[in-house]
């Protein structure tokens, strides 16, 4: 483990930025947001960013390729380019876990080369939470906010910042910081972790359990009567899917620039009424079916295909942002209750 004084963090950022792009969460009028670091930018102390860091690997819109059309002829232009190395500094434990959930979609055969290239060029520096709030329930999914994963894990105390490398990429990053950091024991980190874990135990959602859900539980929950009342006021606005770090549905569209055609992808939402609409009808006719799809996917279908791993990390964004205050916690508490 290495450490530096808190006021040396600017020097740490400057050092990292010498050899790669650096993004840190910083305070804006919209709340904390990841921004490209520039001299003097301060790291936000907010618990988490408004938008999840999935944008780094799976941007909201992304060009895939280009076409030139000439009469009856078409030319396909591979516009993919090697990304630059980049470091994301300050990712919370829940969001770090979301990358594994996305990896299991995008990196399995056939590998999505757009996503994979960004992943390859990234180094993730996580930061441990010290003040989890009432919307946090990462522990429901076995995530420890006090011991975040990532290439480098980092803990901020009042006066110091501690670093621990977890991967070769992380070691390479810490090697660059050798002149700024010194060797450290883990005494202060352990003390901080104990305090955070005590707070976690007292959070309102500390007892929330996902045990009744998981792989193969489709029959138990699909026809549960509670879906009706839960979905009743859902506006189908898709906010929950957009803010969610693990939601990964996308659409593919073409855009005619006048000089050519760009094929791009953009986030889509299973909460939208036209998501599954077909020529001969729509298999998910009402908001109830769409609403059910989102939560069944996170709590049952995804785990069925991914060794029981849930597709929710308890970040609480959907709890904070849904205009009708519906969310996955209410779903987990309510579904199957009448049985």
């Amino acid at each position, binding site marked *: 483990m290495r450490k530096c004084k808190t006021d040396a963090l600017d020097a740490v950022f400057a050092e990292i930025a010498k050899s790669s792009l650096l993004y840190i969460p910083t305070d804006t009028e919209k709340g904390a947001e990841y921004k490209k670091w520039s001299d003097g930018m301060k790291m936000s102390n907010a618990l988490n960013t408004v938008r999840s860091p999935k944008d780094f690997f799976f941007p909201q819109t992304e060009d*895939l*390729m280009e*076409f030139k*059309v000439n009469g*009856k*002829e*078409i*030319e*396909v232009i*591979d516009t*993919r*380019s*090697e990304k630059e190395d980049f470091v994301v500094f300050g990712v919370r434990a829940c969001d770090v876990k979301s990358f594994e959930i996305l990896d299991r*979609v*995008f990196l*399995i055969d*056939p*590998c*999505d*080369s*757009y996503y*994979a*290239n960004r992943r390859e060029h990234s180094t993730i520096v996580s930061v441990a939470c010290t003040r989890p709030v009432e919307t946090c329930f990462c522990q429901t999914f076995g995530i420890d906010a006090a011991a975040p994963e990532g290439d480098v894990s980092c803990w901020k105390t009042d006066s110091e910042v501690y670093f621990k490398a977890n991967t070769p990429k992380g070691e390479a990053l810490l090697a660059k910081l050798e002149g700024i950091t010194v060797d450290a024991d883990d005494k202060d980190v352990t003390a901080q972790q104990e305090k955070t874990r005590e707070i976690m135990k007292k959070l309102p959602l500390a007892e929330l359990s996902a045990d009744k859900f998981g*792989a*193969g539980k*489709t029959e138990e929950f*699909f026809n549960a009567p509670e879906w009706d009342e839960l979905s009743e006021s859902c506006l189908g606005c898709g906010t929950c899917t957009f803010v969610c770090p693990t939601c*990964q*549905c*996308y*659409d*593919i569209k*073409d*855009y*005619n620039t006048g000089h050519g*055609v760009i*094929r791009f*992808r953009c986030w*889509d939402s*299973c909460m939208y009424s036209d*998501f*599954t*609409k*077909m*020529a*001969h009808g729509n*298999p*998910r006719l009402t908001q109830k*079916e769409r609403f059910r*799809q989102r939560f*069944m*996917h996170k709590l*049952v*279908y995804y785990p*069925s*295909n991914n060794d029981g791993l849930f597709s929710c990390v308890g970040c609480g964004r959907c709890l904070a942002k849904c205009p009708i205050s519906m969310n996955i916690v209410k779903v987990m508490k309510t579904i199957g209750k009448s049985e």
Partner: protein
Amino acid sequence: MANIEETLIPKIGVITDVRIDTPDVKTFRVVTPDGKKAFDHKPGQCAMLSIPAVGEAMFSITSSPTNTEFMEFSIKKCDCVTEWLHQAEVGQQITIRGPYGNPFPVDDEFAGKDLLFVAGGIGLAPLRSVINYCRHYRDRYGKIDIVYGSRSKADLVDYNEIITEWVTDDGIDVHLTIDNAEEGWDGHVGFVPNYVKELGFDTNKTVIICGPPIMIKFTLEGLMTLGYEKTQVYTTMELRMKCGVGKCGRCNIGDKYVCKDGPVFRCDQLEELPDEY
């Protein structure tokens, strides 16, 4: 990075023949610009075809894998992509990617079996690939029955191939039907599910069905009353698709992605999925 293959980036295909099948179905022959087949496939697999700035859509490869020269797609006019294709001429380039999805188990479960194909309308498109594969390797299969129906005679896809090639093959019985009687038609009249029941097949057959959902539903019910088990019946599903490789989430039902775990399913496997198709 450009040397890593990316499945979303398509190849170029050229339309080398357009056949008018019915008032709203045309069959397109497609090869690469150097005149070859774009890729190999198995019966039941699909390809994504697109026209830049119009859109991309999934279609069954209706030609048999044993055809090594070109691929064919029978396409029903719906809206954007299909409408555009319907006005395309020979020589038009399109884009093509695939093959996607799992095929019918023609070399495993189907081998040595008597086969019963049941199709309605454009639903013949995916089955034609299987039928012609089985005709090519005729001695690997037992008796073959084909029940095919459409609204009218003019709506029967591949009618010429059916009456000039399929009906003349030994050990193949073709049973055609149309919804309403019309002049010049002396064949059977009535809906496909009823015709299947009337024909009353032995229950030792393996059944392959494709057609409108309502036809599949009633045919299945009919087969069950004849004494068939769901494990003997295969079908192919159609859901909205975008990526074709299990990533965009579009075709997810239960823990399956129809684009990669389907579109071919055995009916007992289908039973296990939530009723959302």
